């Protein structure tokens, strides 16, 4: 290209306007109204959406952690154990399942989860942990000589 003036040279820098805008319009393809058609409006909303996406990636992890805790809590309540007692008893027994796995078990493996709450109850009763509910060690768990 031939540029007769410096002004023209500066104006023609960078990618072609059409392609530069098309990159942004592609990200806005699912927006509604003028947000997807008018560039000056589109760019505002695309920036906003990208910021949300970046923040949301962190929030997703927080949300998942909350969901797991809620699922474990519900499972514990079903079997009459409080959540702190459940975690404390399991760690005392050396069971190192994390919250993600415990939530999976509470959802999809109810029998195995019940086994864990039974162990927690037995351990709590054995150690004499301060518990608000009166806990009888459940039948079916043989603890002596095994939970130490």
């Amino acid at each position: 290209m031939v540029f007769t003036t410096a002004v023209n040279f500066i104006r023609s820098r960078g990618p072609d306007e059409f392609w530069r805008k098309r990159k942004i319009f592609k990200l806005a393809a699912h927006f509604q109204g003028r947000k997807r058609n008018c560039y000056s409006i589109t760019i505002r909303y695309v920036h906003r959406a990208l910021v949300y996406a970046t923040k949301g990636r962190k929030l997703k992890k927080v949300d998942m952690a909350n969901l797991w805790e809620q699922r474990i809590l519900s499972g514990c309540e079903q079997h009459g154990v409080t959540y702190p007692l459940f975690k404390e008893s399991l760690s005392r027994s050396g069971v190192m399942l994390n919250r993600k796995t415990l939530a999976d078990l509470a959802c999809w493996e109810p029998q195995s989860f019940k086994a864990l709450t039974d162990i927690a109850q037995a351990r709590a009763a054995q150690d004499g942990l301060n518990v608000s509910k009166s806990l009888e060690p459940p039948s079916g768990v043989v603890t002596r000589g095994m939970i130490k």
Partner: protein
Amino acid sequence: MSLLRQFCSKLAPILVNNSVRSTQNVSAAITTNRFFSNKPAPYEIVDPKIEKQEQQDIIKKVNEQVNANQQGRIFAVVHLAGKQFKITEGDVIVVEGYWPPGPGDKLKLDKVLMVGAKDFTLIGRPIVEDGLANVTATVIEKTLSHTKTDFKKKRRKQYKNINFYRIQQTMLRINTIDLSGKLNNPPDVTGTEHRIL
């Protein structure tokens, strides 16, 4: 490493019944709370012979079921690359981030935290006995995730920053989950399995 056992509904009522135990409740003797920071647990006197028998009965039932191959589909919880996965045979799991194994590598997953079947669950403290559960896997693919956009912007502050990144991903096929060893049959010497003597 000893295992905790808990039989699920089908076998539990047959195996353990509190009334069968020769127990004597002596909790009345320790009602006072003066010398303890925690409430003392009411304890019972249990015949060790009977209790041992109960334990062996449970272990025997599990061993019989495994030997007869009637345990059904097994799931396992494994610890892999800093995360725990609940897996069963035929699953594909994704390990994210840098992880050296390459495509075609066959792996034996050693850190098994839990094994569950139809009627029983083996819970490791924290892992089940070495050689008891045999979990094998194959690396089937190494790839990158889709492009993620890291975009930061502050209004009215002339601040804008954009970055693009992709995360390494390794796909792992779970080939087998077996209970190969005998339950509660630990070797006399442990800790030397992986050593070259």
